[in-house]
C-alpha cells in the first residue's frame, strides 16, 4: 500500500512537472523542487527491480540532500545496468527498425543507445563514453515517462492536424514519407537524432539542476549532427539516383543500394565509389563487411594516389611550365597572375599635395637664402700682370702730323719731357686725390703731425730655417690659474661683510682701529717732542 501510494504520488508529481509552464522552471520554486524529487524517487523505485546488481532500494530525496548526492545515487543504480542493456541492444540490432517509436521502455532506449554505440564504434573517444553514460542516466531516469510523453505528443499532434487533413493529405503519411526520405539520405541516423534531440530537450526542461546537463546535451547534439554529416559526406553529396526516387525498392538495405548504383553509373570511378560505398557501409550499422582501420586508411591512401597520378599525367598550367612565351599562354593571362620580377628602376614618385608643398617650401627657402645651385665659373687666378691695352683713340687727333713728329723728335732729343700716357693720367688723378685727403688729415692735427721715427736697430738675424722662426702658438690654452684660491687670498680668518657683523664684532673692530691709530699717533708726538 505504501508502494502504491508512493507510486501514485510519483505519478502525480510527474504530471505536475509535465503540465508546469516551462517558464516556471527558470526561477527556483519550492513546489517544483518537491515534485521533481518525488518524481525521481518514483522512477528510481520502479527501475530498482530491473537492475542485476543490488542497489539501494529507495532514493533518498530529503530536502537536506544536495543535487549532487541525489545524482550520485541515481548513478549507482544506472552504472551496472549498462552492460545488461548493451547485450539487449545487440540482440535487437539483428532486427530492422520497423517501428521507430516503440512503446516499451527498453526498445525506446535502443535507438538512442544504438546511436551511442555508433559513436563508440566510429570514434571511440573517452569524452563520448562519458557523455553516453550521462545520456543513459538521463534516459533511464525518465524512461517511463518518455513513452507517456511521446504518446501524449502524438495525440496532441493528431488533434492539431485534424483541421489540415482531407482525403488527399494525411499528416501521418506525410511524416512517414519524410522519415523515409531522411532514412535514405542519412541512413536512418537523422531520425534517431531528431528523436534524441526531442527527448533531450524535454529532459532539459524538467531538470532543475539543468545547467551542467544542458551544456553537455548541447555538445551531444552537435556530436550527433557531426555523425550524421559524416554519413552524408560518405555518399558523395547524397548519391541520389533516379532509381532511388522513382523505383520502389523496399527490400534492399539503404547503403547497399547506393553502392550498387554507383557501380553501374560510373565506370571510371567504380573503384572510388566502391570505396565510398564500403566507407558508407562502415559508417552504417547494418553492413556485411567489417573493414579494419588499417584497411580503411589504405583505401583512402589509394584514392589519394590515384588523384595525384591523374594530376601528374595531366599537363600543368602555363604558370608552372617554366619559360613561357606569349603564344603559349592564353591572351591577357599574365595580367591575372601576380608576376614577380626585379625592378631596376626606382618607381616614379607619387606626386601628392604634400610632396608639392614640400618642394615649394624648399624653393622658397632657397630663394630667401639666396642659396642656388648654379654652375659658377671658376675664377682664374691672375698668372701674370694684366696687359695694358692701348686704347684706340677714335677722335680726330688734335695735333697735326708735323707736330706729332716734332714731339717725337723732341722726346728723342730730350728737349721735352715724355708725354703722359692715359694710364698715367689715372695715376695722376689718384695722386691728387690722395694729396687732398692727406691735407685734410693733417689739418686735423694742426699740422703738428710728428711722423714715427725711423729706428734703425741692428738685430742679429739667426740663420735658422724659416719654419723654426714661426711662432708656436699653444694649441690649447688652459684657463686654470697657477695659484690656488687660498694662495691668492690675502687676509686672515673669516672675512665678514659690514652687514654680517654683529654688534660685538663691530665694537671690536672699532676698538682695534682706535688702538692702531693711537699707536701710530703716539709715535708722532714723540717725534715732535724730540724735535
Amino acid at each position, binding site marked *: 500500500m505504501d508502494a502504491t501510494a508512493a507510486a501514485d504520488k510519483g505519478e502525480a508529481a510527474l504530471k505536475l512537472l509535465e503540465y508546469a509552464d516551462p517558464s516556471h522552471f527558470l526561477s527556483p520554486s519550492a513546489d517544483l523542487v518537491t515534485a521533481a524529487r518525488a518524481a525521481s524517487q518514483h522512477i528510481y523505485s520502479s527501475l530498482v527491480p530491473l537492475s542485476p546488481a543490488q542497489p539501494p532500494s529507495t532514493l533518498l530525496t530529503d530536502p537536506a540532500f544536495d543535487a549532487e548526492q541525489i545524482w550520485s545515487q541515481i548513478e549507482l543504480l544506472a552504472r551496472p545496468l549498462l552492460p545488461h542493456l548493451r547485450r539487449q541492444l545487440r540482440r535487437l540490432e539483428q532486427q530492422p527498425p520497423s517501428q521507430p517509436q516503440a512503446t516499451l521502455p527498453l526498445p525506446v532506449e535502443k535507438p538512442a543507445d544504438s546511436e551511442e554505440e555508433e559513436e563508440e564504434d566510429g570514434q571511440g573517444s573517452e569524452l563520448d563514453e562519458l557523455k553516453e553514460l550521462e545520456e543513459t542516466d538521463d534516459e533511464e531516469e525518465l524512461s517511463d515517462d518518455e513513452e507517456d510523453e511521446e504518446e501524449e505528443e502524438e495525440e496532441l499532434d493528431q488533434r492539431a492536424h485534424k483541421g489540415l487533413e482531407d482525403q488527399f493529405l494525411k499528416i501521418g503519411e506525410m511524416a512517414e514519407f519524410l522519415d523515409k526520405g531522411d532514412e535514405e539520405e542519412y541512413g536512418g541516423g537523422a531520425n534517431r537524432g531528431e528523436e534524441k534531440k526531442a527527448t533531450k530537450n524535454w529532459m532539459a526542461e524538467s531538470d532543475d539542476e539543468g545547467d551542467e546537463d544542458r551544456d553537455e546535451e548541447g555538445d551531444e547534439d552537435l556530436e550527433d549532427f557531426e555523425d550524421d554529416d559524416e554519413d552524408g559526406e560518405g555518399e558523395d553529396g547524397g548519391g541520389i539516383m533516379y532509381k532511388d526516387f522513382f523505383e520502389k525498392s523496399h527490400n534492399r538495405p539503404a547503403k547497399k543500394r547506393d553502392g550498387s548504383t554507383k557501380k553501374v553509373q560510373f565506370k571510371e570511378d567504380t573503384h572510388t565509389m566502391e570505396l565510398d560505398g564500403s566507407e558508407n557501409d562502415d559508417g552504417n550499422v547494418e553492413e556485411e563487411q567489417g573493414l579494419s582501420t588499417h584497411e580503411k586508411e589504405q583505401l583512402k591512401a589509394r584514392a589519394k594516389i590515384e588523384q595525384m597520378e591523374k594530376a601528374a599525367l595531366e599537363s600543368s598550367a602555363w604558370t608552372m611550365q617554366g619559360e613561357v612565351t606569349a603564344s603559349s599562354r592564353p591572351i591577357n593571362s599574365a595580367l591575372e597572375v601576380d608576376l614577380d620580377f626585379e625592378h631596376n628602376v626606382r618607381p616614379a614618385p607619387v606626386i601628392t599635395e604634400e610632396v608639392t608643398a614640400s618642394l615649394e617650401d624648399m624653393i622658397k627657402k632657397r630663394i630667401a637664402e639666396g642659396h642656388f645651385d648654379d654652375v659658377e665659373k671658376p675664377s682664374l687666378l691672375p698668372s701674370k700682370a694684366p696687359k695694358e*691695352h*692701348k686704347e*684706340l*683713340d*677714335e*677722335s*680726330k*687727333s688734335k*695735333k*697735326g*702730323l*708735323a*707736330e*706729332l*713728329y*716734332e714731339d*717725337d723728335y723732341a722726346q728723342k732729343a730730350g728737349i721735352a719731357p715724355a708725354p703722359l700716357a692715359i694710364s698715367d693720367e689715372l695715376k695722376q688723378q689718384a695722386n691728387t686725390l690722395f694729396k687732398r685727403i692727406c691735407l685734410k688729415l693733417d689739418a686735423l692735427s694742426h699740422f703738428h703731425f710728428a711722423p714715427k721715427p725711423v729706428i734703425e736697430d741692428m738685430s742679429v738675424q739667426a740663420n735658422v730655417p724659416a719654419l723654426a722662426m714661426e711662432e708656436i702658438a699653444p694649441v690649447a690654452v688652459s684657463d686654470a690659474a697657477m695659484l690656488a684660491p687660498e694662495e691668492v687670498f690675502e687676509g686672515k680668518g673669516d672675512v665678514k661683510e659690514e652687514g654680517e657683523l654683529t654688534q660685538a664684532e663691530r665694537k671690536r673692530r672699532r676698538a682695534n682701529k682706535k688702538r692702531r691709530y693711537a699707536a701710530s699717533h703716539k709715535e708722532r708726538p714723540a717725534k715732535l717732542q724730540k724735535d
Partner: protein
Amino acid sequence: MEVDHAAGPGAVEKPRFDALTPSEMSGGRPQFRKVPVPPHRFSPLKRCWMEIYTPVYEHMKVDIRMNIKARRVELKTRQDTPDVSNLQKCADFVHAFMLGFDIADAVALLRLDDLYVDSFEIKDVKTLRGEHLSRAIGRLSGKGGKTKYAIENSTRTRIVIADTKIHILGSFVNIKVARDSLCSLILGSPAGKVYSKLRAVSARLAERY
C-alpha cells in the same frame, strides 16, 4: 781755284771745287713746278693761302704763286734755295694740300724726308658697284669718321677718303699698315677685327721707336 805749285817736278794738284748751288746745278736757270688745283680745293686754298705761302717762301725759300686763270699753283726756285729737293718738297706739300690733307699734316712733308703720300682707289682693291661701294666707303670712315681716326691715330698717318680715292700720308711702314687696314675694311672685315690688328701692330711700331 787754287793751283798748288808743288815742289814736285811733274805733280799735278787735284782741283777742289765747291759744291754747286742749286741754281748752278740747273745751269743758272730756275726750276718750276706746277700743281693743278681741283675745283673743290679752290676756296680752301684761298682761305689757307698764307699758311701755305709762309712756310714755302720763308723756310723752303721757294717762290710760289697762284695762277688763277690757269687754276694752278706755280713754284719756282730762287737763287738762294738751299737744297735742290726743297722745290720738290714744296711741290709735294702743295699737292698734298690739293689732295685734301690739312696744312698741319702736309707741313710734315716739308719737315721730314721720309714721308710719302700714297693713293689708291677702291676699285684697285675690289670691284664694287652701287650700294656695295657706298657701304664700303661707309665702312672705311666709320660712324663720324671714328674708324678712320682710329687708323690715323694708331699708325701715325693721315688718311683722306675722297669718294672712291684714298690717300694716305705718312712714313712708308705706317702707310703700309694703314693701307692694309683700309684694304681689309674695303674687303669687308668688320671694324673690330681691324682694330685688334691695329692694336697689335701699333704696339709693335711703338716698341720699335
